[in-house]
């Protein structure tokens, strides 16, 4: 490490700054008509091309609003750290609306801090709020499984080997729904298609994500998607192996412009600005809000150059069906990949069906195991 670029003059100036420590800098915001301070807390870096970036894009939209100050903190662990980060925003920045965005922040952390700060509103990204929990806490979430279903349709058209791949973090219901939706979308194109899944065991573990992607490519998968916090490694590795990719969480097209088919993205900008506007107007946000494509909670990345006309047509038609409401990606006749019946003929689970939230199976055609 070299500090040679430091000139003597620069050093003297800096020393003067140190000496000037007695005249402490102004630590508070200029308080004219006290704007609403909104705090965002992220579990990872806010430029991760994934989960955190999706939320940070929402925060950026809020930042552009009139009468609002946004404060942000990244890489905050799901420990006492997040409790203290939120309290720090309340104490030092007078934050009145907080978005602790990671799933694991809710129980016990948000639930511990909220009762102590009754005049602060806590908005958490997941459908975890239930009756009886503090009324200054709210949950919101989107049905992003439908996005993976649409991803699957473009994958089904793009695959030559009839094998597609999925790099997944943990075998929990949300992830399983995404895997199943991706394959079922692809099977709308060709029922012969199979999807191989590899679980890395962690939300963010770049080395394993790269290994898993390479293993999928070695196994003959030629379209790959994922559900990990930061899809960057999966996208770049897969594209480097000449596979097509479908994105997740945020738009990863810049990472693989030629190979990117489409992606299932959160659309937090619209949701967050409307929530902040509600608070600015003196209203109250509902404690439990959910929605899908039609409600603007999720969106699809623009289709990439490799998407064929047939693919585009089926993609758009299915998207229109989903937007119309009541569409079921998980529908009978359907078995899981160990032979148990999931849905009989004529039975289906729409995106808002509560049964999907305890999903513990991989559907027939998915190569992999939940345990």
């Amino acid at each position, binding site marked *: 490490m070299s*500090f040679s*670029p*430091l000139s003597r003059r*620069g*050093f003297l*100036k*800096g020393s003067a*700054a*140190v000496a*000037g*420590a007695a005249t*402490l*800098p102004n*630590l508070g915001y200029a308080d004219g008509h006290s704007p609403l301070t909104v705090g965002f807390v992220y579990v990872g870096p806010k430029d991760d091309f994934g989960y955190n970036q999706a939320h940070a894009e929402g925060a950026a939209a809020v930042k552009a609003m009139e009468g609002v100050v946004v*404060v*942000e*903190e*990244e*890489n*905050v*662990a*799901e*420990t*006492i*750290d997040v*409790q*203290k*980060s939120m*309290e*720090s*925003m309340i*104490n*030092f*920045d007078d934050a009145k609306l907080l978005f602790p965005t990671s*799933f*694991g922040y809710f*129980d*016990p952390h948000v639930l511990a801090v909220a009762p102590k700060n009754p005049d602060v509103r806590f908005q958490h990204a*997941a459908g975890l709020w239930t009756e009886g929990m503090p009324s200054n806490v709210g949950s919101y979430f989107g049905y992003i499984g439908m996005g993976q279903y649409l991803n699957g349709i473009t994958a089904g058209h793009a695959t030559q080997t009839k094998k597609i791949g999925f790099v997944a973090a*943990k*075998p*929990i*219901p*949300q992830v399983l729904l995404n895997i199943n939706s991706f394959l079922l979308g692809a099977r709308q194109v060709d029922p012969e298609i199979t999807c191989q899944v590899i679980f890395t*065991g962690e939300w963010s573990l770049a080395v394993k994500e790269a290994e898993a992607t390479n293993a999928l490519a070695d196994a003959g998968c030629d379209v790959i998607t994922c559900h990990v916090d930061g899809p960057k490694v999966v996208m770049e590795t897969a594209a480097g192996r000449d596979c097509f990719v479908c994105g997740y969480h945020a738009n990863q097209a810049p990472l693989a412009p030629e190979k990117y088919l489409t992606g299932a993205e959160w659309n937090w900008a619209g949701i967050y600005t409307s929530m902040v506007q509600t608070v600015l107007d003196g209203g109250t946000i509902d404690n439990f809000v959910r929605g899908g494509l039609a409600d603007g909670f999720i969106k699809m990345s623009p289709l990439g150059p490799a998407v064929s006309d047939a693919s585009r047509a089926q993609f758009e038609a299915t998207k229109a069906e989903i937007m119309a409401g009541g569409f079921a990606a998980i529908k009978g006749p359907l078995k899981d990949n160990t032979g148990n019946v999931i849905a009989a003929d004529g039975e289906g689970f729409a995106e808002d069906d509560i049964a999907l*939230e*305890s999903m513990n199976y991989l559907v027939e055609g998915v190569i992999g195991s939940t*345990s």
Partner: protein
Amino acid sequence: MTLSVSENMTPTRSAFGWAALARRAEAVVIPIAALLAGFAVFSLFLMLQGKSPAEFFALVYRAGFGTAFSWENTLSRAAPLLLAALCVALPARLGLVVIGGEGAIVLGGVGAGFAGVLLLGAPAALALPVMVVAAIAIGALWIGAVGALRHYRGVNETIASLLMAYIAIALMNHLVEGPLRDPASLNKPSTAPLDEAFRLGTIPGWDVHWGLAFGVIACVAAWVLIDKTTWGFAARIAGGNVRAAQVQGLPVGKLIVGFTALGGAFAGLAGFFEVAAVHGSANASLASGYGYTGILIAFLARHNPLAIIPVAILLAGFEASSGLVQRRMDLPDATVLVLQGFVFMAILMSETLYGRFKIFAPERWRTA
């Protein structure tokens, strides 16, 4: 400066006092000077980024130590670090570099969480001690095994403890996602939530959990063990020269296994507090790096358990201020890690300075 010397040329009581003070002063002055040197280098780093060091340190002071909330924030973060640092400092007195305390924290937490699940409905007066014992026993076994491998099989304890930490985290993931998982914990696999009666509250009048008090007690107890007992003395002999210790007939094997196990027990206790005071169940959040920060603290404290207390509070204060620094100065969250790195380097380099300054030499003050 000359000191009064009595007529018969035996040093006076006060001369002995000065000598002892000089020797002890060296152990305080050099680390503090190194700390300041680390701050100075970091200030240059900030200036290169075009940021004001004055503003940075003012924010660190305000968010870490400047208000009642800042102290609560700092001390809450210090609690697990005290115990994690002991897991490094105790074996270090025997000359062992154990860096895998994270594994004992994680598995101690799982042990405490599982014991709590088994005892659901039992009186807290029974359940809490059992949970503590479970956490301590698992931690002691985990790090004690590192000591045993070292002594009986000649396995390098640094590598073994680090690799075992990865195994511990994998084991924890397997347990909380498999056999010990509460089926209701859908998207955040965890053990079943603890009985409300088994949750530890905060120290009265303070928003800081009890782990802090136990961490401080543990540090004092460890200091007594090392400085005031024959066991501690024997350990220091063995740490200084293991052959000499063996020639003297000291039970080196027992000391190594005992001190590593004790260090592991403290780390396991940290896991217990994470579960009982913070999370309310055992889950992947247990692996949050306290074991690794503990290494830094133990080295900064030069493996002196009493010194661990202020050092842990200082580093916790840095971490407590990280958020405000991000928000006000638009610096990345890694800034505080860079500061820690510079301080760590400075402290390590200062190791070569001991015995170099005549002013600290007891002889200088023991005028003959």
